[in-house]
C-alpha cells in the first residue's frame, strides 16, 4: 500500500504547484463520499445491469428445460414453483423464523471469530515470540475442513446454539487472523522509523501508524471471514438443527421437495451476497478507495 503511494507520488513529481496527475481519481473518491455516487454518463448508466443478463437468461433456460420435460420436475422444479414455495413460506411466517435464526448464528459466529481473530492477529503480528508460538499451530488448524469439526463440536457443546455459533466463529477466525497478522507484520519499515524518530512511543505508533496501515488487510480478512461464516453455518445446520436455512435444505431432501432445496440455496446466495456487499461498502468507506 505504501509502495503504491510512493509510485504515485513519483508520477506526479513533475509539477510542484499544480496537483499531481493522480489527484483526480482520489479526490473524486473523497468527494463522492459526501456527494453520493457521481452520476454516470447515460451510455454506461445501465452497465451494472449487464451482470443481471446472464442470470436472467439462465432462469429462462432453467424454466424451459423443466417445462419441456428435459429435466424431470421432481428433480428440478421450475423457477416459478420455487418462487411460489418461498412466497408461501414467507406468507405463513415460517420462512422468517428460519432466516432469522440463520442470520443470528452468522452474525454472532462471525462477530466472535472476527474479535478473536483480531486479538490473535494483532498479537502474532506485533510479537515475534507470539508468532513463533502460535502461528505454526494456527496455520495447520486452518486446513481442517469445516465439516470435520462438526462431530467434535456436537460432542463438546451439544446440539444447542453455542456449538453452531462456535463452529461459525472458527470459520470466520482464520481469514481475519491470517490477513491481520500478515498485514501488521508487513507494515512499512520506513513508517516505523518515522514513528521512532518522532518518539511516538509504543501505544501511539500502534494507534497512528501500525493499525491504520494494517486496516485494509483486516477488512480483507473480515470479508473472507464473513464468507466462510456462511459456509460453516450450512455445515452446522445441515447436521444438527431444527431451524435455519440449512435445516430447510436437509428437510427439503427428507420430504423430497426440490423446490424447498433450491429455494434454500437461493436464500443462502442472496443473504451471502448481501453481507458481502455490506462488508465491501464498509471497507470502501473506511479505506476510502
Amino acid at each position, binding site marked *: 500500500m505504501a509502495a503504491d*503511494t510512493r509510485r504515485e*507520488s513519483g508520477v506526479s513529481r513533475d509539477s510542484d*504547484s499544480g496537483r499531481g496527475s493522480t489527484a483526480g481519481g*482520489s479526490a473524486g473518491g473523497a468527494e463522492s463520499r459526501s456527494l453520493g455516487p457521481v452520476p454516470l454518463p447515460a451510455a454506461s448508466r445501465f452497465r451494472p445491469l449487464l451482470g443481471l443478463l446472464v442470470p436472467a437468461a439462465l432462469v429462462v433456460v432453467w424454466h424451459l428445460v423443466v417445462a419441456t420435460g428435459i429435466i424431470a420436475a421432481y428433480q428440478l422444479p421450475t423457477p416459478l414453483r420455487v418462487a411460489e414455495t418461498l412466497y408461501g413460506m414467507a406468507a405463513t411466517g415460517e420462512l422468517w423464523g428460519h432466516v432469522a435464526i440463520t442470520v443470528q448464528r452468522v452474525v454472532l459466529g462471525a462477530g466472535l471469530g472476527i474479535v478473536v481473530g483480531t486479538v490473535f492477529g494483532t498479537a502474532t503480528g506485533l510479537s515475534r515470540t507470539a508468532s513463533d508460538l502460535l502461528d505454526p499451530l494456527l496455520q495447520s488448524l486452518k486446513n481442517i475442513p469445516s465439516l470435520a469439526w462438526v462431530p467434535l463440536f456436537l460432542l463438546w457443546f451439544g446440539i444447542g446454539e453455542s456449538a453452531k455459533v462456535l463452529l461459525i466463529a472458527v470459520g470466520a477466525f482464520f481469514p481475519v487472523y491470517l490477513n491481520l497478522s500478515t498485514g501488521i507484520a508487513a507494515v512499512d519499515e520506513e513508517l516505523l522509523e518515522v514513528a521512532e*524518530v*518522532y518518539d511516538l512511543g509504543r501505544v501511539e505508533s500502534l494507534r497512528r501508524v501500525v493499525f491504520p496501515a494494517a486496516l485494509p488487510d483486516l477488512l480483507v480478512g473480515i470479508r473472507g471471514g464473513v464468507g466462510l461464516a456462511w459456509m460453516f453455518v450450512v455445515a452446522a445446520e445441515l447436521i444438527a438443527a431444527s431451524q435455519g436455512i440449512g435445516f430447510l435444505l436437509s428437510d427439503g431432501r427428507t420430504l423430497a421437495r426440490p423446490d424447498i432445496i433450491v429455494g434454500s440455496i437461493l436464500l443462502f446466495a442472496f443473504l451471502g451476497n448481501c453481507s458481502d456487499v455490506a462488508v465491501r461498502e464498509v471497507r470502501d468507506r473506511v479505506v476510502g478507495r
Partner: protein
Amino acid sequence: MSSDADPVLAVDDLRKRYGDTVALDGVDLAVADGEFVAVVGPSGCGKSTLLRVLSGLEAEFAGRVAVDGADVREGGSDAVGMVFQEPRLLDWADVRENVAVGLPADVDPDTPAARERVDDLIETVGLDGFAGSRPDELSGGMAQRVSLARGLAYDPAVLLLDEPFSALDRLTKADQQDHLLDVWDARGTTVVLVTHDVEEAVYLADRVVVLGGQPGRVASVVDVEIDRPRERADPDLVALRREVTDALGR
C-alpha cells in the same frame, strides 16, 4: 562538551560497521547552534548511515555522538528531527494529521494550541489550503514539504535532512532549496543536510563537510563565507564548488 562554541551536535570518532563492512571510520563533527551544515560525499560513503546514527535509528556504534550534551543512545536522539529522502507520509491521513505526527510526545495533538501550531507550520511550508488533502493528492515536492513541516513540528535541536530534494526535478529542487533557506532563516533551526549534490551543498550551507573514502571519514571541511541571499552563479560560490568537488576527488 567541547569548549568555546558549545556545539548542539557533537560527533567524536564515530565508527559504525555493518557486519564486516565498515561504513564510518572515525568521523568527527561539531555543529553550532543555528548552523547550517551540509555533508556531501559519493554514494556509499556512509552519509545516510551518519544521519541514521544521529537520529537514533542505529543504536550500535563506537565513539561518541551527543545532541545538546546527551548521548543519542540515551535520549539525545529525542532532540533530533529527520526529513527522509522519501516523504514517508501516512497515506491514509491528511496533511494536518501527518504534520501532527511530528509534534513532541508531550503535546496533545487534539488541543486547539496544537492544531494552531500544525496549521502555522503548514502555512510556513507554503501548503495553505492543503491541510485536508491526502498525500496521494500532492505532488512530490509538496509531499516533501509536508515531511519538512513534520520535522519542524518536532521543534528539534537539530533537524536532519537526508537528500530531501534528490528525487525532484531541477526547477522544483531550486524552489525547495530557497524555501528551506527561508524556513531555516525564520526559525533558526540547526540543520544538517546530507546530499550528493555539490551545488546544493555550497549554495545552502555555512559549512560543507566532505566525507570521502570507503570506509567513510571526513576528507575535508569547506567554509562557505558568502552572505545570503546567494547567487547560484556567484564566482566565489563556483570556486568553492570546485574546491568541494576536488576534495571529493573528482
